[in-house]
């Protein structure tokens, strides 16, 4: 196994873990209605989206299959 493959495996596992934690956080924030709560919801959602990008990159769907 080369270094890039190892890095992608570690990154994909990490991204799944962070994605789950982001969803748990988002679920907890969902009923709240304050300005800071709404901004947090938006930012947590985008962070979860970032995790999806990392997973897609690790599987070669994005990033030119690198």
């Amino acid at each position, binding site marked *: 196994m080369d270094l890039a493959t190892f*890095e992608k495996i570690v990154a994909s596992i990490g991204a799944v873990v962070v994605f789950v934690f982001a969803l748990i956080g988002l679920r907890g924030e969902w009923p709240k209605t304050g300005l800071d709560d709404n901004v*947090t919801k938006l930012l947590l959602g985008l962070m979860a989206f970032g995790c999806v990008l990392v997973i897609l990159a690790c599987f070669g769907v994005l990033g030119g299959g690198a």
Partner: protein
Amino acid sequence: MAVSAINASHEAVHARYEAVDSLYRETRDIRLLGFVLFLCSDVVLFSMFIFAYLYLRNSVPNWPPITKGGVQLPRFDVAFACINSCVLFGSGATMHFAMESWKHLNKAAFNLWMIATIALGIGFLSGQAYEYQHVPVTWTGSTMGASFFTLTGMHGFHVFIGVIYLITLYIQANRGVYTGSKYFGLTAGTLYWHFVDVIWVALFFLFYLW
């Protein structure tokens, strides 16, 4: 934990949040709005640099660009960037749970999550420093390199400031500056840290995936 217990816990947090004098509540709301506007201004700052990058990128026929010697520059290392991105996104998650721990008066968990957040933030900066040493472009060699170092450098500077901010918040929280009702500084710190996470989502896509 049962749903009813979670709801009761949220209600207790909300009750504590509202149990402040009217002057503090009013200034807290104003400061919160001001901080969100500050984040909006930072979005504008990054947007300007991102659009400049998009302009440069679309002004050449090939990307990565071809140098004067006729050699096409290589793409950036996606695999390493994926790990570094996970480190930063993970720090966003730990920061969120640090904030929630504080709201639920669990100081031990707050300290643990905060230390994890600071460690991950330093880890991201270390990863970026490592990448700067091994990246296949230079600051002055091409528009690709100039854009990369400008945008990721500006983001890295925000992360650096954020780490100092988080360390300050950690010290303040443990010195009794914040209470279960008054913790605006922690709220602002959490929003700022989530913000630098989200900016990285855009930079990660633009430089490594597109």
